[in-house]
C-alpha cells in the first residue's frame, strides 16, 4: 500500500511526523553526524579546546541570527545587518580610540546607533511597503558608504581595557560573551513563547493581512522587529570588535549571509511564521562545525563557500517543499 492509499487521518499523521519532527530535529541530527564524521577525519576536532573555540568564535553570529529571527519570523528579511555591524563597529571604535570617550558611553552610543539603523529599516519597510529584501539591500549600501566615509578606510585598534574585558572576562570560568549569548537566547525564547508580542509576531509572519484584520498594529510590529534586530546586531558588533581588538569598515559584511543561512537551516521559515531559538543556535553551530571540520581536513576557504551556498539552497528548497506539502494536505482535506 502506498501513501496515497492510506486514510487521510493517517496521511496527516505521517506528514506531521515527516515534516514537523524532521524539521525540528534535522539540524541537530545533522550537527551530530557532522561532528562524528569530522572526529574521524581529524584527531584534533573532538578536543575540548577545539569545541570551546567553535562556540566562542560564534557567539556574535548567534546574537545576529537571533536578531534576524525576529525579522524573519515576522515575515521580513534584513540584508543590511552586515553593514550595520560595519558602521556601528567603526563609530564605536572611533569614539573610544580617537575621541577617548568613556567605554560605557561609547558602547551605549554604538548600541543606540545600531538600534536606530534597525528602526530606519523598519520605518522604510512599513511605510513604502516595498519588498524588504530590496529595502535592506539599498540601506546596506547606504550604511556601507557612511561607514567608509566616517572611517576613511582606517583601522582602529588597541581599545581600552574595560572594553576588551567583554571578550576576555569570565564568570565562573565561562566567558562574558558566552554568558551574554545564552541570556539573549533565553530571553528571545521567552519572548516568542510566553509573551503577547511573540505570539503576534508569529501570527504576523503567518498571515499579514489576517493580522491587520485581527486588530494588530502591523506597522508598529514591523518597526519594532527591525529595531530589535538592529539592537541585537549592535550588541553582536560589540562582541565582534572586542574579540578582534581592532576594526575597520570591512568588519561585519558577510555576517548577514551566515546568519541568514543558519536561521533557515535552523528552521526559521524564509516565508515567516515559523522558527525556534534552540534550532537556530544549532543552525549557527552546524555551519561553524562544518567550517572548522573542513579547515582541519585541509579544505580551503573557497570550498567552504561552495558548501555553505549549497546548504542555503538546500534549506530553502526544504522550506518550500514543506509549505507545498502542507497546502496539498489542506486542499485534500
Amino acid at each position, binding site marked *: 500500500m502506498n501513501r496515497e492509499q492510506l486514510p487521510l487521518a493517517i496521511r*496527516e499523521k505521517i506528514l*506531521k511526523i515527516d515534516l514537523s519532527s524532521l524539521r525540528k530535529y534535522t539540524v541537530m541530527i545533522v550537527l551530530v553526524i557532522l561532528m562524528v564524521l569530522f572526529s574521524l577525519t581529524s584527531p584534533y576536532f573532538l578536543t575540548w579546546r577545539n569545541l570551546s573555540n567553535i562556540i566562542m568564535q560564534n557567539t556574535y553570529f548567534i546574537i545576529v541570527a537571533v536578531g534576524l529571527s525576529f525579522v524573519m519570523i515576522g515575515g521580513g528579511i534584513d540584508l543590511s545587518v552586515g553593514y550595520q555591524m560595519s558602521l556601528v563597529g567603526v563609530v564605536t571604535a572611533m569614539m573610544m580610540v580617537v575621541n577617548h570617550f568613556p567605554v560605557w558611553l561609547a558602547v551605549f552610543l554604538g548600541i543606540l546607533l545600531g538600534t536606530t539603523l534597525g528602526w530606519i529599516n523598519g520605518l522604510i519597510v512599513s511605510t513604502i511597503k516595498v519588498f524588504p529584501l530590496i529595502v535592506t539591500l539599498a540601506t546596506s549600501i547606504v550604511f556601507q558608504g557612511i561607514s567608509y566615509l566616517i572611517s576613511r578606510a582606517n583601522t582602529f585598534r588597541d581599545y581600552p581595557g574595560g572594553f576588551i574585558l567583554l571578550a576576555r572576562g569570565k564568570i565562573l570560568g565561562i566567558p562574558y560573551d558566552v554568558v551574554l549569548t545564552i541570556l539573549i537566547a533565553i530571553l528571545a525564547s521567552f519572548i516568542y513563547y*510566553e*509573551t*503577547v*508580542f511573540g*505570539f*503576534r509576531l*508569529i*501570527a504576523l*509572519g*503567518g*498571515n499579514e*493581512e*489576517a*493580522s*491587520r*484584520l*485581527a*486588530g*494588530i498594529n502591523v506597522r508598529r510590529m514591523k518597526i519594532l522587529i527591525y529595531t530589535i534586530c538592529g539592537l541585537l546586531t549592535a550588541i553582536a558588533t560589540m562582541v565582534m570588535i572586542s574579540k578582534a581588538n581592532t576594526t575597520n569598515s570591512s568588519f561585519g559584511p558577510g555576517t548577514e549571509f551566515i546568519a541568514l543561512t543558519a536561521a533557515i537551516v535552523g528552521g526559521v521559515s524564509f516565508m515567516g*511564521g*515559523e522558527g525556534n531559538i534552540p534550532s537556530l543556535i544549532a543552525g549557527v553551530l552546524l555551519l561553524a562545525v562544518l567550517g572548522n571540520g573542513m579547515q582541519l581536513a585541509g579544505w580551503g576557504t573557497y570550498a567552504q563557500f561552495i558548501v555553505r551556498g549549497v546548504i542555503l539552497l538546500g534549506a530553502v528548497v526544504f522550506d518550500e517543499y514543506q509549505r507545498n506539502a*502542507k497546502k496539498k*494536505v*489542506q486542499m485534500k*482535506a
Partner: protein
Amino acid sequence: MDIEHIVEMKGICKWFGGIQALKKVDLELRRGEIMGIVGDNGAGKSTLMKILSGAYLADEGEIYIEGQKAHIQNPQDAFNLGVGMIYQDLALFNNLDVAKNIFIGRELTHGPLNFLMDKKRMYKRAEDVIRDFRVDIKSPRMNVARMSGGQRQMVACARAIAFQSKVLIMDEPTAALGVTEASKLLGLIRSLKEMGLSILLITQRIPDILAIADRVFVLKGGQRQDILEVSKVCLDDVVEMIIKGKDQGGNHIPEVEYKSYG
C-alpha cells in the same frame, strides 16, 4: 436615535481612486435579525461590510451602533463595539492552532503589564467555545492548516462570536463548502440568531438567504436598491432586483421599508 436597529449606516460613500464603490448607502439592521446582503459582482457588498468591520474607512457617512454614533477606524474598534466579521478567505493563520486563531488580537494575559500570555486559560476558553457552539473540532490544539473547509469556517465563526459579539458579518460563508457542510453552517447561523446575535450575510446563493434570512438588502452599482422582507418575495423577485435594480422594473416588488436620510 432609533435603538430598534442595532446597526445603522447612513450616507456611506467610498472611493477607490477615481471609482466610487459606494454611493450614499443607508442600511438598518434590526436587533436579532438575519439580513442577507445581495448584489452582482462589484455591487459594493463586501466594501460596505468591510467599512462596518473597520477593514476599510468610509470617505463619507456615519455609523450608529445601538443608537450611539460609532467611530470605527480599524477592526479593533469594530470588535470593541461588538461587531465581528468572517471574511471570505476566513483570514485564518495556518501556522497556528485553533485556540490561537480564536484569541489572536484578544489574547488572555496575566502578570505585570499584561504582556504574558495566559495559555492555560486560552485553551480552556477555546474548549468551552467549541463545546458551546457544538462545533465539529476535536481539540483546540489542532492546527487549522490540517482542517477541512467546513471546520475552518467554524473556527472563523468561533473567533468572531467568542467575545460577546452583538453583530456578526459573514462574507460568502458557504461559497467554498459542499452541500452537507453548507447545510450545517446555515444551521449554525440560525442557532446564532436564536442566541440573540444580529447577522449580516453576504452571499451570491439566494436560496441560502431565502432559507434563513428575515430580510434581504439589495445593492447595485454601489447604490442601495431596496430592503425586501424574505417572507414576501421569491427567488425570481430577488434576482430581478439584483439585475434590474429598483428604478428599472424591480420596484414592483412590495416595498417593506425604506428610509431616506438624504
